[in-house]
């Protein structure tokens, strides 16, 4: 399980695979104001990126992994 759901915050694991995009999308549908904690995340599959781009959820914490954080900042800002 790459996610840990805490009420309105979804805490992502280290790696979000292509299958996780589906779960991510569903969670975001269920929690339109849900937030994402990506601290532990080191990579997410492009499908997840698509979901994030389309849903634009609030990012509660950016990844600690610098390259990913840079990319996500550019993509989501």
């Amino acid at each position, binding site marked *: 399980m790459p*996610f840990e*759901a*805490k*009420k*309105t*915050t*979804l805490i992502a694991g280290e790696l979000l695979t*292509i*299958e996780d*995009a*589906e*779960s*991510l*999308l*569903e*969670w*975001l*549908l*269920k*929690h339109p104001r*849900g*937030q994402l*904690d990506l*601290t532990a995340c080191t*990579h*997410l*599959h*492009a*499908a*997840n*990126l*698509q*979901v994030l*781009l*389309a*849903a634009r959820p*609030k*990012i*509660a*914490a*950016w990844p600690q992994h610098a*390259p*990913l954080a*840079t*990319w996500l900042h*550019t*993509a989501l*800002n």
Partner: protein
Amino acid sequence: MNPLLIQFLAEGREFLQSISEKLLTLENDPNDSASMNELFRLVHTLKGNSGLFDFPEMSRVLHAAEDVMDVARAGQVTFSRALADQLLEAMDFVSGLLDDIDAAASDQLPSTHQHATEAARLGAALRGLMTQSLTTVAAAASEPVSAAELPVENSAPAEWVVAISEAVRMELYRRLDAGETLYRLIYQPEEDCFFKGEDPFFQVIQLPEVHWRQVTAREDWSPLAELDAYRCILRFELILSADAADLAEHFRYVPDQIEIFPLTAAMLVVPTGRAQAEPMATDFVRAAQTALASADYVALAQATRTLLELSAPDLWIASALRWLLLLLDLPQAANDGLQLLLAEIGKHLVSQLPSAPLFAKSGVKSPLLPSGKEEKPSVEKGGLGGFISSDTLWSAQVVLEAQREILTLPNHPPWLSGQLKAVAASLTGVCISLGREAELITLQQALETALTEAAPQALLTWLDQQTLPPTEPLPQFVPALSVVKSASSAPATPAAPNEPVAFNRRAEDHPSSSPTIKVEQVKIDRLMNLIGEMVVAKNALPYLAGRAENVFGVRELSREIKSQYSVINRIAEEMQDAIMQVRLLPVSFVFQRFPRLVRDLAHRLGKEVRLVMEGETTEADKNIIEALADPLMHIVRNSLDHGLETPELRRAAGKPSEGRLTIQARQESDRVLIEISDDGRGIDPMVIRHKAYEKGVIDEATLERLTDQEAINLVFAAGFSTAEQITDVSGRGVGMDVVRDAITRVNGTIELRSQVGQGTRITLSLPLSMAVTNVMIIASAGQRFGVPMDAVVETVRVSRCAIHTIKRRLTTVLRERLVPLVSLNELLALDTLQRTNSDDEFAVLVVRIEGEYLGIIVDDCRETVDIILKPLAGFLGAVNGYAGSALLGDGSVLLVLNPRELL
């Protein structure tokens, strides 16, 4: 090498073999739809498998082949010789790649990109076969993009340039000026790329030295509820320092989805900002042009700085001036670059509106502003805002952001003091318009500190204190808040995907599973060795029984041991037999390559050949079968090249124009017979005789004496070739002798019969298995030796008086035949005489070597035993005269002689 790859290599070869078989079948019967489907399935599966590894060249060629097959299967393209040729060539290419990969044999996957051009060519050729009515997928050439081929953007400022913030562009400009090569890369992954296992984001994130990046969607995102996360509409755009070849290599799977443009400095110089009338600018342009004309760069820089200090930093003119300064600052900056920029400033001044409303919400967002901050003006209220309209607040926000951006510019330009003053002036303006005059005193102090320190830090601190909300909400705070808010909401559990994703896998993907398993030969060999040891250990039991009876005098125990022995013996023998069975391979293992070989050779030689193969299921030991491959290949080549005639000659000789080559295999008792026969011109003994004489293989006397059959057998002599010309097919004189040697090495024999004009027949006789050898144990000079039973004709007792000396050689007459005799002790250089029995008779072992009889005098002939012969290894390997060694039941080692080598 990882096990997956090893399996892929093994399977890949099998697939290739089946593919070429199917291709040949189809060539004979293009309408065989079952074969067609099977062929498609094979190509498709192989392609799929190759995708597991990093071999894009292989996948590309296979993909093209698959497409062609798909079209052919649908009947849109007829299966032709050309198509088969092309596909076979593609398969040869893949086979070559497999060999390369196999040869690399390291932990690292070898890169196959050196074959990229070849792969592209094959791919294009294959796709070229598809008719034009079909959508021809562009076979994307994967050659590294050379700079000359790159499309160059026109000079008009493109939208993408404006999207890059000025600071980044200036940084890029400096890099370019310093001689770095920068590329702008656009990567638009295809929509179904996720289903191919690609991760475009990963691909992009791996790129080093990215200076600027942007991720957008190619179309508007559909509402979240309808979003198809697995349809990729991403568009990545980035600017990076890299080598074009490296980029091409990085994206070699998707060369058609990326665009690479080289970046030039001129592209970047695009001033951006708020347009506003700047009364002094017109004068400046005039002055600057004069300065430029007289190459007075110092004056120009001075003028620019002055104007810059006076202009608000977010104005277009300020941006232009900053560029101007940068250009002036860099030594390589071209004069016309400056001129262009000045001209543009002039143009801008003319075109702009006389007065743009201050702080108005402009249609075009200033690129200096990071977007996404607009939603937060409310937070501002605690800072600078009072009861002020949101519009004004927003404008203030914009200005403050701009000031922050300017202050955080990484490098400190020489006009820093002016910059700081300008920032302070802007901030003052903001404070006044927001009614926060009280802050002006601290601002003034901050400015003074900043000026004395020549660093913007103090102003930044002021800005931080005053205004901006944290860019991100504090993570530890937010969840706590939301707990209260959504206490009643259902616990959030990401639901499992409600339906499985439909991957477009085809039904043909599942090959019918066969109840067989693949085992490495090493494992079987180990079993063989173990059973060998088992047999030896088992054979020790009778000795033990003997000792129990004779030494310890316990008869009862001896009998029990013997009965146990018979049980173990039976099981061991069955086990041995079972393991032998495992090692058996059908001869089709060797035969399967002939259809392709015959087809290709026949085409090349311009002959028509029908290949008939019979008894492919006949089985023999793996080693035998493998030893057979090369000799058989040679014989078949010879038949095609020398045996079968061209269609014209055949018709002239009254034979059907199509020659017939038959390869037959069958089992006869414990031997496998393989017959290769053709209905070609046959071997003329007269020609052979003369050739042999010319080449000095035989002398004149032999020439007269030889029978026709003996003459034909001369083709087995070393260095003999009958072909008039050496072709690339055969005829180099290293022919039949090599074949014969290879066959003899596995204890086989070869026989050749030929009738002039009727054809040639070659019969190979091979043992079923090499694993167990039946040897006769002989004794000589107090030692025991083994002699393979294949060679032994008979054992006789010859009395001393029946031995005569003819020409200093011992001979005797046996069954009215003169048999030469040699003493084994003499052959082995043992310094003892052969012993006779009490009747003064010698034990003679008559062996047959190449049709000649020879008697070997030994001391005694004992029983025959089945042994597992192990070739002599290490230093002993070089010793001639021995076939190998074996362990006997009592634990002693038996050396097995090789009579042929001994003589």
